[in-house]
C-alpha cells in the first residue's frame, strides 16, 4: 500500500513537471519577444539601453536552461514571475482571481451533482417509459449547448424577459445564480450520463439476480448492492470534469463579467502575457493531478478489489 502511494505520488509529480516543462518550452517559442512588443512602442519613449536593462531585469537574456531553472525554482516557491501586461507579480493576480473562481466552481459542482443525481434517480425508478427515454436524452442535449450561449440565453430570459434578477446592482449571492446555473449544466451532463449507464450496467450483473433470489426487493438491491458498485465509474470522471469546469469558468466569467481566473486567462491570451498563461496552465494541471490522485485514493475504499494488487488489475481477464 505504501509503495502504491509513493508510486502514485511520484507519477503525479512527473506529470506536473512535464506539463510545466512543455508550457515553458511552448511559450519560449513565442514569435517575437513579449518584452519588445510591450516596451518598444514609441509612446513609451524608452531608449534601446533602457529596454536592454529591462530585458536583463526580466532575465530574458540569460541562456534558456538558466531561465528554465530560475522559473522552475520560482514556481516551486510560489513565485510565478511578473505579468508583463499588468506589471504586477502573477501570484498577486492569481490570488485575487482564485476566490472568485473557487466560489463559482464549487457552487456549480454542487448544483451539477444534485442535477445529475435527480436525473439518474428519476430515470432509474420511474415506471413510465416515455419519461425515462426523455430523461435519457437530456444529457446529450446539455452536452451540445455552447456554454457562452447558455449564459446569454439565461440573462435574456431571467434578467430581461422575466426581470427576476437585476442586471446591475444584484447582491453577491443573487449575482451568482445565473453563472452557477450556466456552469452546472455542462458539468451535470457527463455526470448524469455516466451515472445512468453505470446503474444500468450494474443492474444486469448476476449478483443482482442472486440478491433478488434471496428475496430482496428492487429498492433494497438498488441501495445495498447497485449504488456502491455504480459509483466508481462516476468518480473516475473527476479529472475530465475538472478540465470541463475550468474551461467552462473561462467562458462563464467572460459572459458575466466576473473577475476570476477565467477572465485573467482571457486577458493573458489577448495581450500575449505568457507568464500568466503558464501559471494558469500549471495550476490547472496541478488541480487535475490532485483530483485524479484523490479519486485513485478514494476508489479502493469503495471497491475492495482495487485495494491490494493494483498493478495486476488490468492485466488478466477473469481467471
Amino acid at each position, binding site marked *: 500500500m505504501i509503495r502504491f502511494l509513493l508510486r502514485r505520488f511520484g507519477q503525479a509529480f512527473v*506529470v506536473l513537471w512535464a506539463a510545466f516543462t512543455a508550457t515553458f518550452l511552448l511559450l519560449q517559442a513565442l514569435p517575437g519577444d513579449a518584452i519588445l512588443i510591450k516596451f518598444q512602442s514609441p509612446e513609451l519613449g524608452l531608449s534601446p539601453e533602457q529596454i536592454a536593462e529591462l530585458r536583463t531585469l526580466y532575465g530574458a537574456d540569460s541562456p534558456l536552461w538558466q531561465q528554465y531553472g530560475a522559473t522552475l525554482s520560482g514556481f516551486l516557491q510560489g513565485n510565478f514571475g511578473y505579468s508583463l501586461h499588468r506589471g504586477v507579480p502573477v501570484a498577486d493576480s492569481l490570488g485575487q482571481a482564485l476566490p472568485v473562481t473557487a466560489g463559482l466552481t464549487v457552487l456549480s459542482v454542487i448544483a451539477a451533482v444534485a442535477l445529475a443525481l435527480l436525473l439518474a434517480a428519476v430515470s432509474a425508478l420511474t415506471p413510465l417509459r416515455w419519461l425515462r427515454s426523455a430523461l435519457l436524452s437530456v444529457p446529450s442535449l446539455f452536452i451540445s449547448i*455552447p456554454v457562452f*450561449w447558455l449564459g446569454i440565453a439565461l440573462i435574456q430570459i431571467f434578467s430581461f424577459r422575466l426581470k427576476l434578477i437585476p442586471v446591475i446592482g444584484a447582491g453577491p449571492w443573487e449575482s451568482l445564480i445565473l453563472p452557477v446555473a450556466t456552469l452546472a449544466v455542462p458539468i451535470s451532463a457527463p455526470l448524469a450520463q455516466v451515472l445512468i449507464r453505470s446503474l444500468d450496467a450494474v443492474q444486469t450483473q448476476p449478483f443482482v439476480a442472486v440478491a433478488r433470489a434471496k428475496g430482496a426487493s428492487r429498492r433494497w438491491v438498488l441501495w445495498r448492492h447497485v449504488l456502491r458498485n455504480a459509483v466508481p465509474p462516476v468518480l473516475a470522471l473527476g479529472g475530465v470534469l475538472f478540465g470541463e469546469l*475550468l474551461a467552462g469558468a473561462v467562458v462563464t466569467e467572460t459572459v458575466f463579467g466576473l473577475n476570476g481566473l477565467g477572465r485573467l*486567462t482571457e486577458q493573458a*491570451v489577448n495581450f500575449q502575457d505568457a507568464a500568466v498563461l503558464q501559471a494558469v*496552465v500549471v495550476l*490547472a494541471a496541478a488541480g487535475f493531478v490532485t483530483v485524479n490522485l484523490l479519486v485513485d485514493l478514494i476508489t479502493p475504499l469503495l471497491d475492495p478489489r482495487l485495494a491490494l494488487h493494483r498493478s495486476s488489475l488490468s492485466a488478466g481477464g477473469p481467471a
Partner: protein
Amino acid sequence: MSTVPTQDLSARGWLPGQTPNNSFSALDFAVPSDFSAYGAAAAVDPAVPLASVLHRQGRALWSAARRVPSGLALAWGVIGLVAAWAAAPGLFTGYSAVSGEAAEARLPPSAAHWLGTDELGRDLLARIIYGASESLTGAFVAVAVGLVLGTLTGLIAGSSRRWVDDLLMRAVDVLLSVPALLVSLSIIILLGFGTTNAAIAVGVASVANFARLARAEVVRVRYTDYVEAAFGSGGRFAAVLWRHVLPNSLTAVLAVSALQFGTAILAISTLGFLGYGAPPPTPEWGLLIAEGRNYIATAWWLTTFPGLVVVAVVIAANRISASLRGEGTR
C-alpha cells in the same frame, strides 16, 4: 483465461501476452469500451452475375434506408443542409453576409428577413448561412489534425515495443492533464488569432483523446485470437497490421471522429466568441453571438438563432456518432 507473459520469438515482439498497464486510471473513462458495429455487409458471391448482385445490394440499401430511424434521418438532414449552406450559400439566400442597409438595422424576424437583421442592417439568416463554411471547414481541419496526429500516435504506441508505448502514452497523459481549452489557448497565443489557427488549436487539444482511443483499440485487436491466428498462419507484421489490426480498430476511431466533429464546432464557436477566431466582419457563428450580445436587451434574435443552429449541428453530429458506434437505433 488469464494471459501469461510471453517471451519474444517473433522479431517484433508482437505476440499476445501481458497487456501493459500504463495509464492513470481516472483517464480511462475517455475510451469507449467496446464497439461491435460493422459496415453494411457487401456480400459478393463470385458465382452470381454482377448485375443481380448490384440489384440485390440496391434493394438491400433501399430497405436499409427505409429502416433508418427518424431521429438519425433528421440528424443526417441537418448535417446535409449545413453542408449545402457551406458549399453554395448563394443558393439559399439573396442577401449579402457582409453588407447591409443601415435603414434596416436591428429589425425583428419578418417575412423579408426571416431571422431579423443585425445592427448594421445585415440579414441574420444570410450571415448564418455564409458562416456555415467557416464553422464546417474549421471543424474539419480540427478533426483532421486530431485524427491524423492522434491515430498515428496511438497506432505507433499500440504496436511498438513497451518503452516506446510508455513514452508516448506518458506524453499523452501530460497533454490530457491540461484542460482542452487551455491547450487551445496556449496554441493560439503561439500561432496568433484566426480561423485556421483556432481550428488547429482545437485539433491539437483533441490529439490526446484520439491517441488513447486508437491505442486501446489497437491493443484490444492485437490480443485477439484472429490476429494471433494470422501470425500463426505465416502472416508478416505489415500484412497483419494492414489486413486485421487497422480495419478492426478504425471503426471505433471513426465513430469518435463524428463525435469530435460536434465537439470541434462547439470549441471553435467558443474561441470565436472569445474573439480568437475569425476577425469581423466574418460571419462565424460564435462571433455572431458575441456581436449580438451587445444588443441582448433589445434584439433577442441576434444571439438566439445562431446559438440554436450550433446546438442543432452538434446534436446531429453526436447522433450520427452514436449510430456509427451501433448504439440507439431509435
